[in-house]
């Protein structure tokens, strides 16, 4: 097993990122700092760094990758979804979702065998919905607070909680245990390109509508994480937009004050 390749790949990027950031210094921040994002200066630096990598390297490859016919891309995506299933299963059991854990264990076994290493979603036509769990979600279910929003080099938007869970997610994926460095780099690279290609419509939407892409990404990420923690079915209260309700409350109080004067 080539542990050196495995361990050094993200580490090299991290060191490179820190080196570059030390050299480039501060990044201008529009407007007032957000009290809910105390690490905003650091996060924006990381965001810019990641955006540069995306624009210069990943996006062009992903655009070329999108020229592969749908069926081919679908098979590759199925493979990576299947590869991530053990992480999901472990976390389902850790969260007490035993029925789903059994269901996804069966899915993994059938897709890996009859589905030819997962390239074919053999179980998909049964109508069973895929699930997505990770250690960050498990920590949330256990009641551990999310911590501040954090943008990491290459990994992108995180919370402290999800960032702590990421190494555990990584080592529970079969990809981590692939023996040779060359295979690891190829499969990991393809995984990144597949993810980027799947995100292309959302990134296009962000680029077309957002005036501050960092804020858009941060808000969308935090809300989507909450959605994942609730398995896509958050309580109605969380969908009602608490900020909106609070603001309406303030308006009503202001009006009441004016009327009383």
């Amino acid at each position, binding site marked *: 097993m080539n542990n050196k390749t495995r361990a050094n790949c993200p580490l090299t990027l991290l060191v490179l990122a820190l080196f570059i950031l030390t050299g480039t210094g501060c990044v201008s921040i529009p407007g007032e700092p957000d009290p809910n994002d105390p690490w905003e200066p650091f996060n924006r630096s990381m965001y810019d760094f990641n955006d540069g990598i995306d624009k210069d390297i990943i996006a062009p490859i992903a655009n070329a990758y999108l020229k592969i016919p749908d069926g081919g891309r679908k098979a590759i995506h199925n493979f990576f979804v299947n590869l991530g299933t053990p992480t999901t299963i472990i976390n389902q059991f850790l969260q007490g979702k035993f029925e789903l854990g059994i269901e996804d264990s069966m899915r993994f076994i059938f897709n890996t065998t009859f589905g030819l290493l997962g390239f074919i979603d053999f179980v998909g036509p049964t*109508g069973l919905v895929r699930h997505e769990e990770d250690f960050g979600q498990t920590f949330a279910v256990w009641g551990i607070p999310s911590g501040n929003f954090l943008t990491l080099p290459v990994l992108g938007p995180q919370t402290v909680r999800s960032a702590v869970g990421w190494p555990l997610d990584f080592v529970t994926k079969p990809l981590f245990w692939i023996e040779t460095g060359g295979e690891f780099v190829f499969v990991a690279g393809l995984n990144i390109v597949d993810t980027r290609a799947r995100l292309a419509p959302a990134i296009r939407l962000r680029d077309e509508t957002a005036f501050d892409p960092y804020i858009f990404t941060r808000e969308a990420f935090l809300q989507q994480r*909450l959605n994942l923690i609730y398995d896509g079915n958050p309580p109605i209260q969380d969908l009602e937009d608490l900020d*909106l309700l609070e603001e309406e409350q303030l308006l009503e109080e202001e009006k009441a004050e004016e009327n009383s004067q």
Partner: protein
Amino acid sequence: MMESGSISHRRRTRYSPRRVIWRKMRFTTTMLLQTLMAGLLCLCTVLPSAAQNPDAIATVDNLHAALLDIMRNADSLGFAGRRDQIAPVIKESLDLPFIARFTLGRYWKDLSAEQQDTFVDVFSRWTVVHYASRFDGYSSEQFKTISSAPARRGRELVRTVLEVNDDPADDVSLDYLLHDTDGKWRVVNVIANGVSDLSLKRADYGALVGAQGLDSLIAKLEGQISDLEVGH
């Protein structure tokens, strides 16, 4: 799952030989639990639910029907045709003045009445052209209405799903928050896969207005409208 305009708690069901094989091989406990759940869900679809709000659902279904129409006829309508066709539906279905006001958050009350009117007008035009731009083709997408439930302050949350292809994993959940304005239910927020459109805009617009003022936001919105108009 029923067609758009009807209510169902059930997910889409598909039949194939592999499904039969799969079901035979599943653990007994899983099957029992799923049978129980399926029974309960079927019961839910049979029993009338007092919580459903047909008027709120009708608003969302009408919007979806209009969107599907411009999607299906995207090429023949062209951008201008889609914009002109969807504009009255958007203005009828969405409470644009309310949404515009809350996208600006605490900055709204600092504006003059004239500035507020200007912003509502620009924001409304921006919303229409973005719908016309985004819904620019059709490849068998379907909107399915799942349920509606009361929310706080007399609002209603209508939960729907956009099926983009045959894979349920790719479905996009679209939840609409509506309120009653003079007897008409209108949308005040759209939540896609848990991400609130209103919340995103408030954060984005608030930062820009706080740093550069309302005029800058209006200029940027006008710029995006022009880009989309010219780009099509």
